[in-house]
């Protein structure tokens, strides 16, 4: 590995955008002075009609002129999100419930799939095919660990108390 650099001045484009007037605040300095904006509250003329449920930050008075409509709030996660939007963006009360809602939303997504008769293909959705192709050893170890832990948990949960008792009795007998 070669770590010495050629003469930087011979690199294509060297210094092409350097500005001797430059200081760390560039390009702010060359921008319009904020106080000189004659109409700082200007809004676009047309506004997107609000025809879906839109959660709105309490830090601005109105709905922005356009907005996305990727996934309006639904179900339990939607209720948690509505609650979160009672708090400002500088408050944990806003962000932590949103993260919780995201996790609830994942379960809702699986239930919704099942309700539509679609069993999600978790193996494909997690992209495990490429993991298998390019990272096989790590992948096999990971899967084996998961299988081991799952088997262990199942054995532990389904352990027959009665059998345990009998086994103990037998061991007493052996002694």
């Amino acid at each position, binding site marked *: *590995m070669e*770590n010495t*650099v*050629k003469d*930087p001045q011979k*690199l*294509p*484009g060297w*210094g*092409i*955008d350097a500005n001797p007037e*430059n*200081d*760390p*605040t*560039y*390009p702010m300095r060359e*921008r*319009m002075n*904020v106080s000189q*904006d004659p109409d700082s509250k*200007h*809004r*676009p003329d047309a*506004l*997107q*009609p609000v025809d879906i449920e*839109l*959660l*709105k*930050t309490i830090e*601005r008075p109105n709905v*922005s*002129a*356009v*907005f*996305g*409509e*990727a*996934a309006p709030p639904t179900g339990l*996660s939607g209720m948690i*999100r509505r609650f979160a*939007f009672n708090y400002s*963006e500088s408050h*944990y009360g806003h*962000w932590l419930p*949103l*993260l919780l809602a*995201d996790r609830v*939303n*994942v379960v809702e*997504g699986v239930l919704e799939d099942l309700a539509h008769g679609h069993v999600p293909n978790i193996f*494909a*959705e*997690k*992209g495990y*095919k*490429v993991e298998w192709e*390019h*990272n096989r050893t790590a992948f096999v170890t990971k899967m084996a660990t998961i299988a081991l832990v799952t088997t262990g948990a199942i054995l532990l949960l389904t352990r027959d108390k009665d059998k345990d008792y009998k086994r103990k009795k037998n061991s007493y007998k052996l002694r």
Partner: protein
Amino acid sequence: MLAMDYRGPKRVRATQKPMPEIKHPQDAIVRVTRSCICGSDLHLYNGNVPDTRVGSTFGHEFCGIVEEVGPEVTKVKVGDHVIVPFNVACGECHFCKQGMFGNCHESNTQSSAVGGIFGYSHTAGGYNGGQAEYARVPYANVGPTVIPEGMDPDDAVLLTDVVPTGYQAAEMAGIQPGDTVVVFGAGPVGIMAARCCWLFGAGRVIIIDKEDYRLEFARNYANCEAYNFEKDMDDPVVFVKKTTDFMGADCVIDAVGAEAAGNAMQTITGRKLLLQAGSTTALHWAINSVKKGGVVSIVGVYGPTDNLVPIGNVLNKGLTIRANQASVKRLLPRLIDHVQNGIIKPKELITHRIPLEEVADGYRMFAAKLDNCIKPLIVFPTKI
């Protein structure tokens, strides 16, 4: 239409979804021709960005052909092949008027801190993104820019984010001729930032990461020094001090953001427990390794909750910290020139082409850094 569909942390798929519709007179519908998976998509993919809702489509880096326009669209017409900047910007608000298109006030109802970004959670406006056959593009008079004659769409698609973000990182660093610049993170943006530092007259550019294949790539692409913080040094801060005559770097660029490795405490509190806005390891290193009076430029994405940032050192050292989402629209004319003159060669960053149907594999490959992946491009059934 076929579209990427988020189902939960590390679970995505390609699903049939309804076609997007014109909702505002300045909207356009674009048939996507190229779309990238971005390092910052991984924050969404890992479930670290609040209000990332199941059923949404990611993708803020795309270009495509205009299929339909709203009644007030005059700057682009049906059939134009356009670059779509990742920010949704109105062009007329207080912030857009200052060239801060990345901070538009009329594109996001759900947060006042961040502007609208395609396919980047409801915190960034709830827009569906371009990892789909079609996308709704608001404010089509402002953002979309026709790909100039002769420019390869593979170059064009990287002008939506990677090139302008890397360039703005170097610009915000306030580089003076001859300066030593350290870039943390050798992902596509870090590599591009390192390349652009030379355009501002840097005298020495050092990039630091932990993946050898990315360092090798950066060394070749950006002509810079490249070091592995796990193999070449004990402590990156001490390393930078030593190599700069114990002064510190003149400027440091954080091109890592919330997914930083390298510090267990940060990993647990930031990435696992989500108690702070991701792991801030790179930011700590940046603040602590820059010289007194230096500039720290942040383009790595951090989440919105609290950070354990050494802010006391920022004060004590009299630092200037500049950070922003790139204002793509402001930079496009100059960057298009640089691409056309061969000074920046964006498409050399693309290492993988993934059909939209296999988007889940693409995300896994990029997230797990498999097969020496630097930048994956999603390709579409109808290729142009």
